[in-house]
């Protein structure tokens, strides 16, 4: 592989396409509007712009790394392929019956999300595997041929195959694929035993259906993208960011597009991880707050926490259960409907509620003067002095205090029975409370103590709310990196090549069969390695093996990291100890007398990254240049305080400012509350630390 000095990361988001170009002299970034009809056009425009900024030629680019929200959008907007689903007879309706419960207990008019494949497009075959992978009912080849003919006749563009227990034995699925391909070589076919070989039919079927649904579209988009890049002289290899926080080849991405669903947010988590590494912070809470949602992710020892399933496209107030459960490796993220555009209202009990409804960018908050009439978090921040009406988005948008006031007056003060200032404080305090509760719940679910974490805050809204979050959570330090507006695209440049292979493979430790396990693990390694070397060649790699374990009888598995080596029968004791340690860390105890079992396995092969250059943390040396003084409402003190205003560009390495202070830049403002002080760091980030840390 040739030396790749110039690399470019491109993230297509809902509103903007972000570009980050890394070259010998640093980083050039830019944002262009996302082009929904021709997403690749925005990429080209952005790359050209960034290359010009850096004074380089397009031909200098050695690598393009791409992540996109378009896969998720096509699921949400139902713009995928004409799709058929083939499953085991008796299980035609698994994806329609879902978990058989209601995600909202008191709503008599609840609507459940409709499946991506309508019932008339779901076909069944008389065949059946048992839980142990043995054949209970063999596949009838003639029946499959007849079905294949119907599939062709009805003009389906893609087929998802999900058979019962295919994670334990995928032979029938492979036979079905072979017969379908014989009948229609061009047909896009996705198998559940390939895309998501994990136990639990509802999640696995959903995953293979989602994959097949977007596959033709994603494949053609990626082909087009590579061609367009060639056309303008970028012959570089293109790689895709996957939801698990690593890079895969275009070919893998085109075959398994379901792995791309969370690629953008994964880039954000990698971005936070990079700062965790260079600042030597072992435990980081990544906090990304934009206009509509806030995302929270844990980064420990430089690696974002991952999971093997998640929910996309929630249809009901971001409520758990209202979306589509997909089981594929993912950076584990909590997303709640809390952002600058989140709308405040008063409920039947006179309580202020904030979000998840958002004014978005159109019409936007009332103060944007674009017709928004409902009060939002941004309006409240304006009224509390945390935003400067004359200097928002670098002065591009003039904010109207009077429109914010009238929105709050009209919709809140009367219903809630409080004064305007009180109502504005209520809005920000409730949204801060919602985000802090989500962060606390997430760390607790992972058996962690949130106070031990350092926050890395990015996205337009996070620096406004970071200090208050930390006051609520007991966190003592926040890092606000530079370039936070294009964090995901920068994160792409820092990601390893990686592939996580998973398998449902049931083992009770009392009958631990090391031969079977070794064979399965080897198979996972071959699979993962093949995908990684397809993209990264012979670069040095590391392997992580995780067993998902529980006590027999429990329904919740916990991830247990095992050393990757050939197991012997006596290793059951070692695995039991590893489980006990992990269980104790999560729940504070173990339980005697119960059997232990493993349900799913995951093996990740990732290329080794160069260790991050350590940034020496600077203590306070000299005072930052103060532009002027202004006032904002400090929530912890419950009063308006006089604050100094400092330009971000004046927060040079070692420059210090004590709260109350506001650090302004074009993209956002950082509110330094009375409890914190800010210190400029060598890499351009700002460190916010509690003044009373010495006594903590």
């Amino acid at each position, binding site marked *: 592989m040739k030396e790749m000095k110039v690399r470019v990361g491109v993230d297509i988001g809902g509103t903007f396409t972000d570009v980050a170009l890394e070259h010998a002299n640093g980083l050039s970034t830019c944002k262009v509007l996302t082009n929904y009809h021709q997403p690749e056009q925005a990429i080209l425009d952005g790359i050209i712009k960034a290359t010009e900024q850096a004074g380089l030629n397009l031909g200098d680019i050695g690598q393009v790394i791409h992540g996109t929200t378009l896969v998720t959008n096509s699921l949400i907007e139902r713009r995928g392929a004409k799709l058929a689903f083939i499953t085991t007879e008796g299980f035609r309706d698994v994806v329609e019956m879902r978990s058989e419960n209601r995600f909202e207990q008191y709503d008599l008019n609840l609507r459940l999300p409709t499946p991506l494949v309508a019932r008339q497009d779901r076909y069944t075959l008389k065949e059946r595997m048992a839980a142990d992978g043995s054949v209970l009912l063999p596949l009838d080849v003639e029946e499959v041929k007849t079905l294949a003919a119907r599939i062709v006749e009805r003009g389906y563009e893609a087929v998802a195959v999900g058979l*019962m227990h295919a994670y334990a034995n995928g032979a029938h699925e492979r036979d079905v694929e072979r017969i379908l391909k014989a009948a229609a070589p061009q047909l896009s076919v996705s198998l559940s035993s390939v895309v998501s070989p994990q136990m639990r039919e509802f999640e696995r079927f959903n995953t293979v259906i989602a994959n097949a649904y977007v596959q033709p579209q994603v494949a053609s988009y990626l082909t087009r993208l590579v061609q367009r890049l060639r056309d303008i002289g970028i012959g570089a290899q293109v790689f895709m960011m996957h939801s698990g926080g690593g890079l895969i080849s275009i070919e893998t991405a085109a075959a398994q597009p379901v792995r791309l669903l969370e690629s953008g947010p994964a880039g954000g988590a990698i971005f936070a991880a990079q700062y965790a590494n260079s600042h030597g912070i072992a435990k980081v809470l990544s906090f990304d707050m934009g206009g509509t949602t806030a995302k929270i992710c844990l980064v420990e020892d430089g690696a974002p926490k991952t999971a093997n399933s998640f929910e996309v496209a929630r249809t009901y107030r971001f409520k758990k259960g209202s979306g589509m459960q997909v089981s594929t490796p993912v950076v584990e993220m909590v997303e709640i409907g809390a952002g600058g555009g989140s709308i405040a209202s008063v409920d039947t009990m006179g309580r202020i509620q904030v979000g998840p409804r958002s004014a978005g960018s159109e019409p936007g908050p009332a103060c944007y003067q674009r017709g928004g009439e409902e009060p939002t978090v941004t309006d409240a921040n304006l009224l509390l002095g945390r935003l400067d009406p004359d200097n928002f988005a670098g002065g591009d948008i003039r904010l109207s205090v009077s429109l914010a006031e009238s929105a709050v007056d009209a919709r809140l003060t009367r219903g809630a029975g409080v004064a305007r200032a009180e109502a504005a404080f209520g809005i920000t305090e409730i949204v801060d409370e919602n985000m802090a*509760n989500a962060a606390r719940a997430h760390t607790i679910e992972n058996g962690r103590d949130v106070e031990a974490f350092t926050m890395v805050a990015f996205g337009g809204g996070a620096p406004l709310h970071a200090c208050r979050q930390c006051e609520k959570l007991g966190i003592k330090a926040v890092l606000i990196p530079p370039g936070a507006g294009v964090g995901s695209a920068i994160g792409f440049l820092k990601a390893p090549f990686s592939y996580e292979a998973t398998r449902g493979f049931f083992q009770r430790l009392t009958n631990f069969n090391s031969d079977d396990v070794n064979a399965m693990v080897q198979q996972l390694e071959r699979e993962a390695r093949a995908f990684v070397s397809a993209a990264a060649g012979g670069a040095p790699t590391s392997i992580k093996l995780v067993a998902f374990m529980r006590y027999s009888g429990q329904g919740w598995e916990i991830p247990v990291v095992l050393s990757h080596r050939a197991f012997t029968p006596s290793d059951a004791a070692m695995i039991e100890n590893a489980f006990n340690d992990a269980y104790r860390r999560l729940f504070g105890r173990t339980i005697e007398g119960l059997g232990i079992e493993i349900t799913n396995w995951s093996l990740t092969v990732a290329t080794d990254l160069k260790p991050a250059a350590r940034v020496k943390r600077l203590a306070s040396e000299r005072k930052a240049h103060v532009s002027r003084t202004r006032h904002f409402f400090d929530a912890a003190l419950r009063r308006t305080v006089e604050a100094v205003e400092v330009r971000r560009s004046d927060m040079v390495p070692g420059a210090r400012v004590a709260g109350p202070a506001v650090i302004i830049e074009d993209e956002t403002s950082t509110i330094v509350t009375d409890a914190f002080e800010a210190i400029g760091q060598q890499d351009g980030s700002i460190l916010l630390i509690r003044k009373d840390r010495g006594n903590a």
Partner: protein
Amino acid sequence: MPSSVIDFQIMWNRLIAVVEEQATTLIRTAFSTSVREAGDLSAGLFDRRGRMIAQAVTGTPGHVNAMAESTGHFIREIGPDNIFENDVYITNDPWMGTGHLHDITMVSPSFRAGALIGFFACTAHVVDIGGRGFGPDGNEVYEEGLQIPIMKFAERGEVSQSLVRLVRANVREPDQVVGDLYSLAACNVAGDRRLQEMLDEFDIADIEGLSDYILETSGKATREAIARVPAGTYRNTMEVDGYDAPVHMEVRLTIDGETLTADFAGTSGMSKFGVNVPEVYTRAYACYGLKCAIAPDVPNNHGSLIPFGIVAPEGCILAARRPAPVSIRHVLGHLVPDVVLGALAQAMPAVVPAEGASALWNVQIAARPVEGREGRTTQLLMFNSGGTGARPSIDGLSATAFPSGVKTMSVEATEQIGPIVVWRKDLREGSGGAGEFRGGLGQTIEIEAREGYEFHFNAMFDRIRNPARGRRGGHAGAAGAVRLSDGTQLRGKGRQQVGAGQRLVLSLPGGGGFGDPRKRERKNIEADLIAGYISREQAVLDYGFED
């Protein structure tokens, strides 16, 4: 004081997060299938007078609303002078807890600076409680398992080993059940830790002022919502299958300004079998049904529950007297909302749905090797739901639990646990009641033991002889059916055998339709035909569909 209103609102939000954490801790560490997979639990915070002020939204109404009453019993039985820091109290008393012996309720007092400030309580359904096992065949509660009166599980942090040994000796899965007892106690501790942090942050000594604010606000909002319902007296009756004899349920609902009473006088007397319902459980579900229609947005707490005055005469099947058997009280309990909603429909015709399958079709299976083969018996529990009733402007939900809040389990996961094969679990075509808005479809389930095994199961199914009725011209949903694959009809209640090579076939009821089916939009009938939700014959006969 205006600023304290905002603070109270923030603390109220925080309390919901506190009890959610309490519930999450329980779900993640519990062993019981119904807790971990199905969410059959509840968790809540009570003030020092025993009034519930916050409750986790996870959980199922029968538990939640019944548990709301239980803390008062604990305070009385333990005695105020006998409550110490780090105590934990326990009961599974069906009349003071949540209606049957399988549910364990645990209450932990919360102290601050040495003073009692409130209680955390939680309830979970354990895998076994001894006796005959989970099923309706007992004739007295004594046959249904071990009874634990209200007592101390732990005093000043010291767990009663005598009680633990007693429990271990009386249940089939001692490790799991005792594990669950500790999980329940641990979840209360988790809640309390978070509550104390909140009180530190806001620098307050107790939750009295907060409790008053929450309960007054919720009570007021609920009473106002009741006052918006047209005043009057509304009656309804409903017949269901029962066990040994059909059950007649009757309610008189009176709404007069801000007061509401629902009286079940006229309802059948008790059964000899475990379908009886303690009154606390009847109140829980009646209240849930009414609240969904009248005040769905008001959080569940003592303040929002109290305005619903619900009574059933002692000795009727919905207010069973000790020592009646009550093991499967959920079946009639789940049908109670249909009874009260049928009365309320007269006052709120545009809100109340048609009747649904309502009672879960839980199957408790014991699979064992056929004679002459080695191996132990495996217990399996499956939760399954029929269709819900059509709503006044939307179709019913197919194969979805209402009023219960539980989830089903993955078939693949079930088959990993025991030697059975579930050959079918899919929608039951044509089972939704016809209507301008169609009832939700039931489902069909076929279960067989794997080769070399056989099983028995405890049936606890209803709406086999009494299908869900439609409303305002809507037709009834399909009735349920229980049979073997050879056609043998089985009973809807009680223990029955399924021999090797036979399949158990369950046909779950559909929901009732809403409105005249002939008014259904043609495009919706066509869509139903294409999807196979209805047959062509139904389209023609019920809906008057012409090609």
